């Protein structure tokens, strides 16, 4: 009985059908998001719960998702590795053309909040790896990608104000976007480009943001984008949750003390939540200190000190983690590990999965299995150990990435450089 209990603790048994949920299953709303005043529902953009599902969007092309994920990781690496002589040149690493978002059906997480007076409900991607919040704005002087909800029209909002290009907010753009604000008839103009060459250019402005009826913020600095292009299929813009002064948590710190929490649902027919403030934070949360990353102060740095597979701690020297450091990012799909840590994780995982049929690598994921014909799969648990004693066991869906039944892979990848 003990052995059986231990196995239950050290492994997950997954119904394989749950790796491919039917897109028609009814939406289950998060009770947390429904019951907490400062909480928003987090939905898969194309799931049954999304208000911006468009029949037009194709089902996600996983190989493309992971290719773009690599572009994001390269962009983060190049931002953080100013010290490295062999720094990946931005242009070389991000030579993906920015495309009209509607061509990619990728599985992002969005929240809907009200902007302007009268309030317009708009769905935004949220991203802890970004600081500036921006939305598309009429009259889209240069170009706007297609979005599901009406594009925001600042001239019809009584609470909209442009920011002067001689203001402190305008000068703080350089830390929030990497580009200094410029002037256009004394108005502050921002520009931001992302790793995959998506971009938004427009006026830095102040507006009223309404999370819920009782959580309303006047004068939030945000970008009103008149020239936006990229892979934002259908969403109105992006909510920046980074650590910079201009991020949304920093601008609402007086109310929420820079505290926010979220749960990303693992199926498109569930909503998760994005909650500002400490309302409803569970007492079982285990904390680890945020570490500051040189050249990356707006990222949330973490110190990983170990990994276990199936309850067994891997023999990884501490310097393997401490030399590169680590960060947590809501927008990176696949967590990357230092090469030696990934090799140890992969080896231990493979040893526990020896009863399953190996298959060839898919995209950046090199440890894959053909589970055709099976009803369940039993995988070892994977836990991360962080500085300060926090041990986090990943959910069963946090260990596998399922392309199809014949290609179910370990959902981690190795960085190419020990310093990344």
């Amino acid at each position, binding site marked *: 009985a003990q052995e059986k209990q231990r196995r239950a603790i050290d492994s997950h048994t997954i119904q394989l059908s749950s790796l491919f949920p039917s897109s028609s299953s009814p939406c*289950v709303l*998060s*009770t*947390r998001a429904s019951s907490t005043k400062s909480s928003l529902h*987090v939905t*898969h953009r194309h799931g049954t719960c999304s208000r911006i599902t468009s029949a037009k969007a194709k089902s996600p092309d996983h190989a493309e998702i992971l290719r*773009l*994920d690599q572009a*994001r990781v390269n*962009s983060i690496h190049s931002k953080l590795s100013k010290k490295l002589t062999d720094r990946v040149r931005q242009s070389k690493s991000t030579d993906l053309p920015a495309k009209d978002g509607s061509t990619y059906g*990728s*599985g992002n997480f969005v929240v809907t909040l009200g902007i302007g007076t009268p309030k317009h409900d708009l769905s935004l991607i949220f*991203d802890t790896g*970004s600081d500036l919040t921006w939305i598309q704005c009429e009259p889209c002087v240069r170009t706007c990608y297609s979005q599901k909800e009406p594009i925001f029209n600042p001239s019809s909002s009584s609470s909209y104000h442009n920011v002067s290009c001689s203001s402190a907010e305008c000068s703080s753009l350089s830390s929030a976007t990497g580009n200094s604000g410029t002037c256009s008839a004394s108005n502050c103009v921002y520009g931001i480009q*992302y790793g*995959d060459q*998506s971009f938004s250019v427009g006026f830095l402005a102040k507006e009223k943001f309404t999370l819920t009826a009782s959580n309303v913020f006047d004068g939030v600095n945000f970008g009103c984008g008149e020239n936006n292009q990229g892979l934002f299929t259908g969403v109105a813009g*992006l909510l920046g*949750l980074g650590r910079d002064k201009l991020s949304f*948590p920093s601008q609402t*710190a007086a109310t929420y*003390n*820079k*505290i*926010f*929490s*979220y*749960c*990303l*649902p*693992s*199926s498109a027919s*569930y*909503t*998760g939540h994005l909650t500002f403030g400490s309302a409803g*934070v*569970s007492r*079982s*949360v*285990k*904390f*680890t*200190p*945020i570490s500051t990353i040189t050249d990356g102060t707006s990222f*949330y740095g973490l110190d990983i000190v170990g990994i276990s597979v199936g309850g067994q701690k891997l023999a990884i020297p501490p310097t393997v983690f401490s030399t590169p450091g680590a960060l*947590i*990012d*809501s*927008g990176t*799909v*696949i967590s990357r590990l230092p090469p030696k840590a990934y090799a140890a994780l992969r080896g231990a995982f493979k040893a526990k999965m020896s009863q399953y049929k190996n298959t060839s690598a898919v995209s950046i994921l090199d440890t894959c299995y053909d589970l055709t014909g099976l009803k369940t799969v039993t995988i070892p648990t994977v836990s991360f150990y962080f500085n*300060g004693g*926090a041990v*986090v*066991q*990943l*959910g069963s*869906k*946090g260990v596998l*990435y399922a392309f199809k039944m014949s290609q179910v892979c370990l959902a981690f990848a190795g960085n190419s450089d020990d310093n990344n």
Partner: protein
Amino acid sequence: AAIFGNVQQQTLEVVYDGAAGRVGFAPNGWGCT
């Protein structure tokens, strides 16, 4: 950046406490409910 949800964080409660300078985790359950 290509903006997608992080696989490893799915169904975890992730708490960012900027003021206290810490990040926290708790198991949340399969559908975040």
